[in-house]
């Protein structure tokens, strides 16, 4: 990716994200957010993040791998347990990475 298209990428993402942050603070009192949209937006974090996480574990090299040789799947399940119990980003990363490194050192 060229430097120009990289900076254009940042600006495009940044502008869109700014508008998402700004829109209802600006429009308050001018126009109300439709009720259905407010309800639908509640599901964005869960749906979007799961759509990123699941394939990263099941397709570590771009192909489906549900075997015990898929260390990322196994370490990810360990990390999921920590994430579920603590909801702590840093702790989940530490445990998941440690599990991955241990398995690679032991069986890799």
């Amino acid at each position, binding site marked *: 990716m060229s430097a120009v298209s990289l900076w254009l990428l940042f600006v495009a993402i940044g502008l869109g994200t700014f508008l*998402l*942050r700004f829109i*209802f603070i*600006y429009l*308050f009192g001018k126009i109300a957010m439709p009720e259905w949209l*407010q309800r639908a937006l509640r599901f*964005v974090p869960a749906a979007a993040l799961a759509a990123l996480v699941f*394939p990263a574990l*099941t397709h570590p090299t771009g192909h489906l791998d549900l075997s015990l040789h898929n260390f990322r799947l196994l370490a990810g399940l360990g990390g999921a347990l920590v994430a579920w119990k603590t909801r702590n980003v840093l702790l989940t990363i530490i445990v*998941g990475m440690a599990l991955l490194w241990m398995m690679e050192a032991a069986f890799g």
Partner: protein
Amino acid sequence: MMRMNEDFLAGVKGALPILVGVIPFAMISSVAAVSVGLTFPEAMGMSVIVFAGASQLVVFQLMSIGSPWIIMVFTAWVVNLRFSMYSATLAPYLQKLSFWQKALLAYMLSDQAFGVSLGYFLVNKKVNHRWYYFGVAVTIWIAWQIGAIIGALLGALVPASWGFDFAFPLSFMALMFAALSDSPTVIAALVGGMTAVFAKQLPYNTGLVLATFLGIASGYFAESLNTKSGVIQ
């Protein structure tokens, strides 16, 4: 005027405990930026222009697998849709301001600034909301950028063989579990995740966007069913 200073400082204090999470996350985002080949000015430029960690990490993951430009932009927007929900929720508290003051406060809106501010507003009624929010948001913004600078400087020292890209899905995982507040949100996550697995082979990572929308639709539908059965009972 005294009241404003007090509330601003209360906001700064309110933000301090969560910096323990904000700074490492900012560092990770910058380490990731450097690991996919961004220079220091590019990593910091993105950190300032976008200022949304989860979407930055998503973009780096898409960069590392060679996704097209438009998919990266669109996916980042989808991941950041939640900000419009925060914007709508905080809007009543951030009024009687000029266009540019609103724009500045909106630019600094983050998951953490939203969470801390709203939690405080619901308990403390007698507060200047704008100053309190500003105190929280600007503290988080500064801490984030400091973490990003440290991460970008350290990033060059982390070899690719450590598999550090695995930190992306792990961080998303923790954020995902935090978003699971009831059964419709769990359904949204399960449908979104499973669809993404089955749609993995679709061209240009379009499966990701499809999976997100199907997940949202499933959660919405499940919630509607819940509400209806509740009325009947």
